[in-house]
């Protein structure tokens, strides 16, 4: 069984500034969704609303037919995990301890159960972070931290995974391997929604692209249609062209 998100007329204002308006979207099957748009388009706000971090928005946001704001937090955290843009720690926790925190929504007591450890080992394995599980999280590089946070979210064993620019700090190799991982998780039945600025990664890996502009949905379709040259011009104000590599995936080139 997959999760079902239904957003109807979602809007959000901070004071006089309208960050989101009239966003109506449905996510009702597993798959990889790229959420894109220029800076200030409302991507992070939308992701925060969907992960239950914001209330006071207009419209309704439902998960499995139940309004997000009325979900018990523990149950919700077993359905939906969020990977924040970056995580800064003030205290010494090992990478493993950060991943272990992903099991808190399942906690039946003071300590982790064998199933908890199994989930943690698997999450570390998947994100290629087992090597430094015992190192201080704060001593890791930005990319390593990002993968540990992803591991923590995977340890939550959610049915929807929301990511805010998951590959910002990653080197090329890890960018690709994280997107490979996200796509394979999506194939296994996870709903993955990732905010990204990298249109080529979005085009190459996602099943669906949602583009926001000025707080409204400007495109919502498969990558080819949502990222068509005229759409990119409209949403980002940038000239773009799809190039066909011989025998390979298409490539979006920006600029003149």
């Amino acid at each position: 069984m997959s999760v079902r998100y239904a957003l109807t007329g979602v809007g959000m204002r901070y004071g006089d500034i309208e960050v989101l308006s009239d966003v109506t979207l449905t996510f009702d099957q597993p798959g990889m969704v790229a959420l894109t748009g220029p800076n200030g388009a409302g991507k992070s706000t939308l992701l925060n609303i969907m992960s239950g971090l914001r209330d006071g928005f207009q419209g309704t946001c439902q998960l499995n037919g139940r309004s997000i704001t009325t979900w018990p937090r523990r149950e919700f955290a077993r359905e939906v995990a969020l990977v924040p843009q970056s995580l800064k720690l003030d205290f010494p926790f090992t990478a493993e301890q950060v991943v272990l925190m992903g099991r808190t929504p399942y906690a039946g007591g003071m300590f982790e159960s064998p199933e908890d450890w199994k989930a943690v080992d698997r999450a570390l394995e998947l994100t290629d972070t087992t090597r430094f599980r015992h190192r201080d999280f704060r001593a890791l590089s930005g990319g390593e931290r990002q993968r540990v946070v992803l591991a923590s979210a995977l340890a939550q064993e959610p049915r929807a995974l929301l990511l805010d620019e998951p590959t910002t700090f990653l080197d090329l190799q890890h960018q690709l391997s994280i997107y490979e991982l996200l796509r394979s998780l999506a194939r296994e039945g996870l709903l993955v929604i990732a905010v990204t600025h990298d249109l080529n990664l979005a085009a190459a890996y996602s099943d669906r692209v949602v583009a926001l502009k000025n707080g409204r949905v400007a495109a919502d379709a498969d990558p080819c249609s949502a990222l068509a040259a005229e759409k990119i011009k409209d949403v980002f104000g940038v000239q773009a062209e799809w190039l066909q590599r011989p025998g390979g995936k298409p490539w979006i080139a920006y600029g003149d």
Partner: protein
Amino acid sequence: MGIEPVTPARAARIILLALAVTILVGLITPLIGPAKIELSRAFRGESPDAQMFFGVRLPRTILALLVGGALATAGVLFQALLRDALATPYTLGVSSGASLGAVIAICLGMNQLGGLPAVWVAALLGAAGVLLLVVAVAAEGRRMSSFTLLLAGVTINSVVMSLIMLLHNLASVGQSFAIVHWLMGNIDPVDAGTLWWMAGIILPVCLGLCLLARQWNLMSVGEEWAATHGASPQKLLLAGYIAGSLLTAVVTAVTGPIGFIGLVVPHAVRLKLGGDHRLLMPVSFLLGAALLTVCDTVARTLLVVEIPVSVVTALIGGPFFIALLRSRRRSLWL
């Protein structure tokens, strides 16, 4: 640099070790002092040994254990809630509220209030007043965050401190001496009834806080992190602030503010054991209890005249803390 995960076996081993240290300190320190005590005579009820041991030294040791444990636990808690390694039980104003209450009682020359020393009752009332004020200001608009809590607490703390200075300035010489004595913090022997009610508050509150250790782990990472991991950050902030304030208020009312325990002990334990509150909190409670008891023993035996225990905790704690901060450059574990 690696550190082992917190498994039940490791937690039990380390907590039992800390418990053994604390019990040892609790057994040995009452025997130390200018007058030699023979335990066998004390237990046979022979004076002066029995009077000295059960009437003076043992209550004092138990008071120091309770106060040290409560301060260290409150320190751990406030550091986690505010995500500030420099937070202490006194950061958010509750202890200065207690001080203000005590100073008012001293200035009004009150002795007894409802069968208890007036200074204690007034201190508890002062602490409660500041607690309510801070929560009211921090929770404005029904959204409390660690930031609004810190802002409200620190601001109200400094306002209350200046009121204390004002009253001190207006007080007579005799009152002024009493005020200074109170503000320095002292562990004076108290009667068994006082120890019972203090233990009756401190022990359950500390135990309850330790049982919520995994929630404090989440909160020490961040409020949004806690929220996306099934916890309710606003409830935890409020409950934590009230519990930590209760601990601080109870000990401050009886002993006055005693510095450094709530700062140094959590840091030292975190340095050795990491940030997981399942170990950090109970071990800080136990070692805080032991450290304050040792400091108090030093305070009453080092010189012919008793020195205030706050002076000892600062003299031991200060250099220790500076050493910790210096080692921070070498090791990331702080």
